[in-house]
């Protein structure tokens, strides 16, 4: 498994080397223009998603999967390695974002009304885990090329629904009812619980992916 995990990072090395300076530049821009580096989280989430899905495309282009079947390892190990390398990528993302946040706090004074960093980080991690949990089995089932349209729909449909709800005013009503219900005070707890929830989702997704991969032919 270690060989396969190291393969993922070796393949992504070049991509990461070009992305990290962009990340740092965007953090500096956002921090100094908005006074808040939390939006960097969105950039990091996008990067994590992009790089983890790209690995599937790179493997497909190299016909790596057929070659991997000739290794003395079980199919489930190949799937587990992919999930492990994705988890490690998430951990790396958390580290990068936390460092950027700490650095930005030194250089930029924040107003008191700013959103707390840790709950938002937890929610971001949950969202990334959720997307991985949905996307990976789809890619294993349909292959990277055929799953492009499905992946686009999975990402775009919730965004479109969110925009439509926002325009219709339904979201304003929802937020107002949340304020009055007192649930707002519990949001930090939900945020902290979202990380273990995300990991549980990944585990379940891994089991599904193993099942799909075991039946696959190459």
């Amino acid at each position, binding site marked *: 498994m*270690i*060989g*396969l995990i*190291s*393969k993922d990072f*070796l*393949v992504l*090395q*070049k991509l990461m080397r070009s992305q990290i300076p962009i990340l740092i530049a965007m953090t500096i821009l956002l921090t100094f223009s908005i006074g808040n580096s939390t939006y960097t989280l969105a950039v990091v989430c996008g990067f994590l998603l992009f790089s983890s899905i790209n690995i599937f495309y*790179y*493997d497909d*282009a*190299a*016909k*790596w999967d*057929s*070659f991997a*079947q*000739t*290794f*003395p*390892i*079980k199919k489930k190990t190949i799937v587990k390695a992919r999930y492990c390398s994705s988890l490690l990528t998430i951990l790396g993302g958390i580290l990068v974002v936390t460092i950027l946040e700490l650095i930005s706090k030194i250089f930029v004074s924040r107003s008191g009304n700013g959103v707390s960093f840790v709950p938002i980080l937890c929610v971001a991690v949950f969202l990334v885990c959720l997307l991985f949990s949905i996307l990976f089995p789809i890619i294993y089932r349909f292959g990277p090329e055929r799953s492009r349209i499905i992946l686009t729909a999975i990402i775009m449909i919730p965004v479109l629904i969110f925009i439509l709800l926002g325009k219709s005013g339904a979201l304003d009503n929802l937020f107002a009812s949340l304020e009055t219900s007192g649930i707002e005070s519990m949001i930090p707890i939900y945020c902290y619980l979202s990380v273990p929830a995300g990991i549980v989702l990944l585990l379940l997704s891994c089991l599904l992916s193993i099942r799909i991969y075991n039946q696959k*032919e*190459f």
Partner: protein
Amino acid sequence: MENDLEIRSLNKSFQNGFALKDINLTLPRGSVMGFIGQNGAGKTTTIKCILNLLHPDSGTIRIFGKEIAQNEIAVKEKIGVVFDECPLHETLSAEKAEKILSKIYQNWDSSLYQSYLKEFKLPPKRPIKEYSRGMKMKLSIACALAHHPKLLILDEATSGLDPVVRDEILEIFYNFIQDESHSILMSSHITSDLEKIADYITFIHHGKILFSSPKDQILDSFGILKCGKQNFEMLDPSEYISYRENSFGYEILVKDRYLSKKKHPDMVLDRVNLDEIMVFFVKGEK
């Protein structure tokens, strides 16, 4: 004699209508088997079934006396595989490929891998995308040999290579089988390579094995009889495999050229090569 590979009654069908039908194949230990056939005949499909990349509908496949499905890890530790294209990511280098593969194979031999890189003149730090086709193939072979496999499976490994590189690669395979505990299953269109190195030849056509015999026996027993129409009509159909008509007369692929020579001493009877046998089997008339 022990067999490194035994396939019995292998069947595999696909939705597009293609099927492997009742494949039987035996590769004795210490030998080289050439696996020949047209494009789409079933060579790669058979190899994929051997490696458990495809799930057969029925039949058994034993490697080193063990069924691969039940002993996958132990068996694959001793197999080296070379496909027609280098399956390593182009952004990787030979050095990085070793970092990956050395953690996968228990018997990975780093000094052996390095010696192959030196022998093949492969720059270890250069990205694979900057390698020529011949260099990529040599790298694939280095990766396949560096973990001391007992069985080498090659699927069109020499296709698209120039004669000089092919000769170098054949030399590597020849050295590999000097150890009599090593075997090679090699699918190839380049029958001249197989005539140099193979001990056995298996011919597959439309998913069926047409023959699987020692190479020398095949090349010695088959022959091409050349005659005119009158003599052709006198021939016993059971004597030949197929014939081809041309402007000079008839060319007939006979099963036993010594017997045919005795029966038809006045007819021209030539030795045959694997290319001609393939063409007669596929395109000849019966």
